[in-house]
C-alpha cells in the first residue's frame, strides 16, 4: 500500500488519517459480516433444527435457546424417519413408504448416466467445432448458440409429448436422454480446445496420429480441468433438477403402467416435495427440515472437495439446474 509513503503536515493530521482508516475498516468488516450472517443463517438454522427432536423443535425459539437445550435433545430420529422404508400410521399399522434411499439411488443413476452422455456428446462436438474443418460449420455453430436464447419451456412442451409418445413416462430414459446434450458445455469446451496451439496438431500429424487419436491423446488430457468442471456442474445440475422430473417422473411406475412393483421414480428434489405432504412429516417441521438437510448435504461435500472447479466454471457461465 501507499500509506507509508504519504506525507502529513503534522503529527495530528497523520493520526487523524490513521483513525479514519481504522473506522473505515471497521465499518467495512461490519457490513460484510452482517451480510455473511444473512447468507449463513438459513444453513445454521437447517443444521440445528434437523438435529433436535420434534418436541424440542416446538420449544425452539432462537439460536440462543438452542444452546440451553443441552445434548439430551439431540437426535438423529428425524433422519431415521426419512430413510425408513415403513412407518406406523395413526391406526397403528405399519405401512410401506418411499424412502429417501430410493430417491438417492434414482438421482445417482440419473446424474451419473446423464453426465456421462452429456460429457461424451460435448467433447466430441466441441472437438469438431474447434479443430476440424467442414462445410456448414459456422452456420451450425451459430444455430446452436441461437438456441441458448430460447427459453427451455418451448422445448419442454414438445419433449413432454415425445416422452408420452415413446412410452418413456416414469422411466430413466426420459430423465437421462432428453437432456443428453448441452449447448453451453459444447461452447465452453470449444473455447478451451481452441486455446491449444496449432503446432501440437501439426506435430501429431507428422507423427501419423489420426484426428480422433489426437483428440484422445492430446486435446482431452490438456482440457481435463475444463472437462472436470463440466462433469461437476452437470452432476450438480442433475441433483437439483426439479421441473422436468416433476412432469415426467413424479410418482411411481404403478401410475404409468400396470406394473405391480411399487417403484418410486422421484428424484431427490421431487422426493423432498412429496415428503412435505407425506404422512410422516405432517405437522413435524423437524422432519421436513431433515429432508432438506439430506438433499443439501451431499452438495456441500461436493462443494468443499471441488471448490476450485465449481467456482471457476460458474464464473464463466450463468447456468443453474
Amino acid at each position, binding site marked *: 500500500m501507499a500509506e507509508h509513503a504519504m506525507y502529513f503536515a503534522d503529527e495530528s493530521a497523520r493520526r487523524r488519517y490513521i483513525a479514519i482508516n481504522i473506522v473505515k475498516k471497521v465499518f*467495512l*468488516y461490519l*457490513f*460484510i459480516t452482517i*451480510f455473511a450472517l444473512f*447468507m449463513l443463517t438459513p444453513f445454521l438454522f*437447517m443444521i440445528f*433444527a434437523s438435529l433436535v427432536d420434534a418436541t424440542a*423443535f416446538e*420449544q425452539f*425459539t432462537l439460536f440462543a435457546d438452542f444452546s440451553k437445550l443441552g445434548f439430551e435433545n439431540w437426535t438423529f430420529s428425524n433422519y431415521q424417519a426419512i430413510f425408513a422404508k415403513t412407518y406406523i400410521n395413526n391406526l397403528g399399522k405399519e405401512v410401506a413408504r418411499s424412502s429417501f434411499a430410493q430417491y438417492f439411488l434414482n438421482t445417482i443413476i440419473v446424474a451419473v448416466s446423464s453426465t456421462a*452422455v452429456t460429457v461424451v*456428446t*460435448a467433447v466430441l*462436438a466441441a472437438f*469438431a467445432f474447434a479443430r*476440424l*474443418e*467442414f462445410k456448414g*460449420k459456422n452456420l451450425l455453430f451459430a444455430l*446452436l448458440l441461437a*438456441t441458448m*436464447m*430460447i*427459453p427451455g*419451456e*418451448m*422445448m*419442454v*412442451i*414438445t419433449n413432454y*409429448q415425445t416422452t*408420452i409418445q415413446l412410452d418413456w413416462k416414469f422411466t430413466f430414459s426420459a430423465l437421462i436422454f432428453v437432456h*443428453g*446434450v448441452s449447448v453451453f458445455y459444447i461452447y465452453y469446451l470449444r473455447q478451451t480446445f481452441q486455446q491449444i496451439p496449432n503446432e501440437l496438431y501439426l506435430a501429431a*500429424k*507428422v507423427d*501419423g496420429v*489420426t*484426428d*480422433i487419436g489426437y483428440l484422445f491423446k492430446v486435446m482431452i488430457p490438456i482440457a481435463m480441468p475444463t472437462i472436470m468442471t463440466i462433469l461437476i456442474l452437470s452432476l450438480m445440475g442433475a*441433483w437439483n433438477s426439479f*421441473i422436468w422430473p416433476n*412432469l415426467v417422473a413424479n410418482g411411481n411406475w404403478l401410475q404409468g403402467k400396470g406394473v405391480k412393483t411399487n417403484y418410486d421414480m422421484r428424484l*431427490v*428434489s421431487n422426493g*423432498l*416435495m412429496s415428503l*412435505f*405432504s407425506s404422512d410422516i412429516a405432517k405437522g413435524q*417441521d423437524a422432519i*421436513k*427440515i431433515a429432508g*432438506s438437510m439430506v*438433499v*443439501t448435504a451431499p*452438495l456441500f461435500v461436493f*462443494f468443499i472437495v471441488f471448490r476450485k472447479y465449481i*467456482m471457476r466454471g*460458474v464464473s464463466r457461465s450463468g447456468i443453474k439446474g
Partner: protein
Amino acid sequence: MAEKIKERNEEMAVEEVKLTPEGAAVLELKHSTSHLIAKRRLVTLPQWATAWIVLIPAMIFLVFFMFYPIINTFFMAFVQDFRWVDGAGSFALGNFFSALGNTCAQMDKKTGECLITNSIPSFGFDNFVTVLSNQVFLKSILNTLELVIIEVPLTIIISLLIATFLNSIKALRGLYQTIFFLPYVTNTIALGLVFQMLFSSGQGGIINMVLSNFGRSPVNWISPYPTQFDGPASRFHQGVVIVVYSIWTGLAFKILVFMSGLATIDKQYYDAAKVDGSSSFTIWRRITLPLLSPQILYITITSFIGAFKMYTGVMSVYSSLNKGAYYFGGDHGEEWMPIVGWIYKQLDENYLYPGIAAAGSLVLLAIILVITALQFAVSKKRVHY
C-alpha cells in the same frame, strides 16, 4: 512389425536441432518424410468425414430434443384448436400431416369405426388471443414484471457493493468469498422450505421473533390461512419473502463474476487516483464502475433473462403448504404466479391442448427478446470495453 517401426524411426531420425533467431526449435530430419505422411493420409479419413462422425451423438440429441421441439412448439402455437391425440402419429407435425390425409384421428381397430374425427387444423392467432385475454396469464406477466423490477436491481447493487468491499479487504477474504458463494450450491426447494420456517409464525420463525422483540405482533408471511395473530398473508408480505429468497440465492453468482472482473482492473489506476487525492467514492464512481461495466452488462442481461424465467424459486416458498408444484399463494394459487409457472400448469393439467402453453411460451420468448434488445441498445452508450 518391429522392423518396420525401426526402419521408420531411422528415417525420421533427427539429425540436428537448430534454433531460429526467435528461439523456436527446428528439427532437421535425415530423410524427407513426406512419402510417409502421404502413405498415412491414404488410410486416414478426411476432416469433414471425421467431423460429421463425431458430431453424430450430439446431433441425434439436438435434433430430437432441441431443434424439433422448437419448430414443433412454434408450429403448435399457430394451429387453431390443436388437439394432441395420444396415439399413432401424435407428434404435432405428424398429426398435422396425417390430418391432411384422413379425417379420422383415432379408429377402432376391430370395427373400423371412427372414434375421434379429425378436423384439419387451420392456422391463425387463436391461441394467442386466448392466452392474451386470459386474466391469469396477464396477471402472471404483471407478477413477473413486478418481481423482476424489484429483485434484479437490488441484487445487482448489493452484490456490487459486497464485491467492492470484499476486494478492498485482505484478511479473511477467502473465507468470506466462500460463504457468499455457498447459496449457489444448494437445492432451491430445500432452502425454500428453510425460508418458510424462518418466516413462519410458529416455532423457529426468527423473523417474527425479531419483530416481537420490537413489540410488533407476529406477521403471517406466507400461509393463506389466518393465524392466531394475523389474517391470511397479504400480497405484500408474500412478495417480501419471495424477493428476500431470490436475492439470497442470486447474490452468489453475481458476486463471483464481479470479483473476477475486479481482479482484472489494473492497480495503477487506483494509485494514480490516490496521488490525485480522490475520495474513495470518486474512485469507485469514476474508475471501478466504468471498468467493471462489461461485467455489469453481462450480469444485467443474464439476470433479467433468468428472472423472467423464474419458477422454482417462487414455488418453493410455498412448498410446505402441500398444494403441489403449481401453487403460488392466495386462494387460487395465483397470487404471485410467474409466467413459467402458468405455462407448466397449462402443460401439466391440459396437455391434450398444448397450443395454449406453446403460445404462452412464445409470448415469454418475445418478452425476453425485447428486453435483451433494449439492454443492448442502452449499453452501447454506457459500456467501456
